[in-house]
């Protein structure tokens, strides 16, 4: 397997796809391994094939859009694996595709997904079978084993490339790098479930705390990454590690991009927004004062039995 893809495509993966695959796997695994209370009640034991039941493989399709060189994977749906033909059930796939087209007409089948620690040789059969739907499908592989020591997402995206190996041209899987892309609503709901926030209003203080905590956590992440880079550069300067010119060029280019925006137009827009918000706050304060004033006047009139 070649280390990385040379297609030049940019892959963007949405969190919904990851949660979808995770849910599919969890569901299949739980059905094969019922909770102890249910298993005891029904008298079912786990039987022989424990290893298979522990980590069943699930399969599905990933859908999204491709705009130029950017492939954005938005969603996925489950498929059936036909063990006789060793490929995904085609009629089922077409039926599902038809159903999804009605609701998401702009999404196309971009590839397929499965679970496991690494791509198998047999996965290429499935991959090739999808090539009549998509000329260059992607393969999204999720490793379902939970390892708390790992910091990287256990999701790998593979593309297929034609390589000549021992004089024989053959398709092999190559790693493709990807970024996580979210739409605003998706990011908010991922945050919501990740931190299990209550959906009720909460007080203004709670809302403010939640909002600022989010920003604080993001800035903390940025800070930690900058520190790592800084320490790496210091070590390079000291000579502890060999000088890496490409990294130095990247860091230099990044630094030269700051300040991020410094145009007059941005300043105008920014200050306009700023003043609009101050104006809204001012008017809200006046509204509050008017309400309080009205209550006072009423109480005064009631106390002194005044009629309007």
């Amino acid at each position: 397997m070649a280390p990385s893809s040379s297609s030049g495509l940019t892959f963007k993966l949405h969190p919904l796809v990851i949660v979808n695959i995770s849910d599919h796997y969890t569901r299949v695994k739980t059905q094969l391994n019922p909770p102890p209370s249910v298993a005891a009640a029904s008298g079912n034991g786990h039987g022989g094939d424990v290893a298979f039941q522990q980590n069943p493989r699930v399969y599905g399709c990933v859908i999204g859009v491709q705009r130029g060189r950017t492939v954005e994977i938005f969603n996925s749906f489950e498929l059936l694996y036909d063990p006789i033909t060793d490929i995904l059930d085609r009629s089922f796939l077409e039926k599902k595709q038809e159903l999804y087209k009605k609701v998401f007409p702009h999404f196309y089948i971009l590839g397929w997904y499965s679970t496991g620690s690494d791509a198998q040789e047999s996965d290429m059969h499935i991959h090739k079978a999808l090539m009549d739907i998509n000329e260059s499908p992607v393969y999204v592989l999720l490793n379902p084993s939970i390892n708390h020591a790992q910091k990287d997402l256990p999701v790998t995206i593979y593309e297929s490339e034609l390589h000549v190996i021992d004089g024989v041209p053959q398709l092999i899987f190559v790693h493709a790098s990807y970024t996580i892309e979210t739409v605003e609503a998706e990011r908010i709901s991922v945050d919501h479930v990740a931190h299990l926030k209550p959906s009720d209003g909460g007080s203004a203080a709670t809302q403010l705390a939640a909002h600022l905590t989010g920003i604080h956590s993001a800035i903390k992440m940025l800070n930690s990454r900058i520190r790592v880079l800084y320490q790496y550069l210091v070590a390079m300067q000291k000579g502890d590690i060999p000088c890496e010119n490409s990294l130095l060029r990247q860091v230099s280019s990044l630094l030269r991009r700051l300040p991020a925006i410094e145009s007059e137009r941005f300043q105008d827009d920014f200050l306009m927004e700023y003043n609009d918000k101050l104006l809204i706050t001012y008017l809200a304060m006046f509204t509050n004062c008017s309400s309080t004033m009205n209550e006072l006047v009423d109480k005064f009139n009631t106390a002194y039995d005044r009629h309007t």
Partner: protein
Amino acid sequence: ASDGIFYYDDVAQAKFQQEKPWANDPHYFKRVKISALALLKMVVHARSGGTIEVMGLMQGKTDGDSIIVMDAFALPVEGTETRVNAQADAYEYMVEYSQTNKLAGRLENVVGWYHSHPGYGCWLSGIDVSTQMLNQQFQEPFLAVVIDPTRTVSAGKVEIGAFRTYPEGYKPPDEPVSEYQTIPLNKIEDFGVHCKQYYALDITYFKSSLDSHLLDLLWNKYWVNTLSSSPLLGNGDYVAGQISDLAEKLEQAENQLAHSRIGGIVPATLQKKKEDEPQLAKITRDSAKITVEQVHGLMSQVIKDILFNSVRQ
């Protein structure tokens, strides 16, 4: 153990269906548990509709007085507020989708429907109440979920509500206590007329152990999106609409003041319900909500400006 909720026991579910404990108690179901996947799917679908109301169905099961929503799928139906039982347009789709889902191992039945109220809050309109009553007549147990994708983006938290209707003519012994929410002027009548015909269920969320692990790791990637997002962008029309609505409510309140002896105040001794709160006080709350959301957005913009634009070579 936390993944046990994902197991579908068809025997237990069939038994529950036969017993029908909800038949004798209109208030039987009190809680809703929504999976991370279902929430994500519903919110993303609702937002994709923009200002158009979209709808879908939810699949799941029951557990005592809780309805557990495991998954959701979109329906090819739009404008749910234009007719009762809009999902009738998609019956064929529903049947086909449910059948394919069952083949793929999604054994749960449909337990409810969700739809979006873009920008006007989570409650049931007259049409929604009629639709849900019909559903509860023929498809129990059934739940109605409403999502406001516009307010979700504006407030930075998911705006969602889960409801069940009472049977026709039923009067609940206690007034349902509901959280105050801003209702636009053009929807207030629809809201007020029907608000006593349904009650809200408590919503909680759950996720699998693998979901938790993946979501923790996802943070290492999407913190960039958190930092780069801004609730002020993309919601300009909604904010303008909210302020305009506020101004109209002020006009209405002023007219009331001019024509009443007491300026809308009900003495505390006579104030039984929150609805007796003076209209001006409600308007003040609405204006505070708009302001808080705008100020939150501004805060993040100012922080980012200081962070990225105050660096000098």
